[in-house]
């Protein structure tokens, strides 16, 4: 699975490549019809000063993300499910924790996954954005 990586409030997040149509730089104009939703606000973490935006595929959502940190191909076995009993919301927008085996970390093009990152669930994010 190919994922796009970005940094937000000191943590690494990822979105499936297929879920994102395009990434906009902070100064790029938003295409007409797109609605910006602040990911940091949804997650309750600190917003970056000048965030990039991810135009999500198949809808009007433009997700205000942090700073892009490259792309990586990850294996399904590296995605660890997060137990539902630890969350205060019924449906948390995470597919799981990406934990790259130590033996594979040096071969990744992005070092953003040198530590575990969170793979976001674009469908739940779209629901949360309304």
């Amino acid at each position: 699975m190919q994922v796009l990586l970005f940094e937000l409030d000191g943590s690494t997040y990822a979105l499936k490549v297929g879920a994102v149509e395009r990434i906009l730089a902070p100064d790029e104009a938003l295409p007409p019809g797109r609605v910006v939703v602040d990911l940091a606000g949804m997650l309750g973490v600190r917003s970056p000063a000048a965030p990039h935006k991810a135009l999500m595929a198949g809808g009007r959502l433009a997700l205000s993300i942090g700073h892009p940190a490259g792309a990586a191909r990850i294996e399904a076995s590296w995605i660890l499910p997060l137990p539902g009993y630890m969350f205060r919301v019924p449906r948390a927008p995470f597919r799981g924790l990406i934990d790259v085996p130590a033996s594979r970390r040096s071969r990744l093009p992005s070092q953003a996954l040198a530590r575990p990152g969170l793979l976001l669930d674009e469908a739940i994010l779209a629901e949360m954005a309304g």
Partner: protein
Amino acid sequence: MEPGSHITLKSGRLRISIAAASIRQIVPAEGITRIPLTKTDVAGVLARDGRAIPIYEIAALVRGGATEEHDTDRRQIVIVERDGMLAGLLVAGTESSSSQGADPSGLARVIDGDVLLHSSGIFDAGKGGDHAALAAEGDS
């Protein structure tokens, strides 16, 4: 408390006695990843042995979400297991004890860790930990 070998978990002035049989591992408090939208007593998760293990502030479990300044000394994670589910407890230290429910110094109250885990609801999906503090109050 049930008879048998116990481990005493230390956090600030708290002493929590837990059956050794419930403990799967004790590891250094390193590599915790913060996760948004978690309950207030969750410190993050630890990726270990192919699983993401939720890590709890044990002092917050006892007090129903609040921690105190002197609880910041957290050096170990005690990983406990119940019905195949895992949870880590963030503590300052541990020591083994043959007698459960007694603090050798006589200065600290000792809480039954098994009662705490049950009443905190940390293994119950959709259930909060609001009752942990009440359970702890009645177990001093």
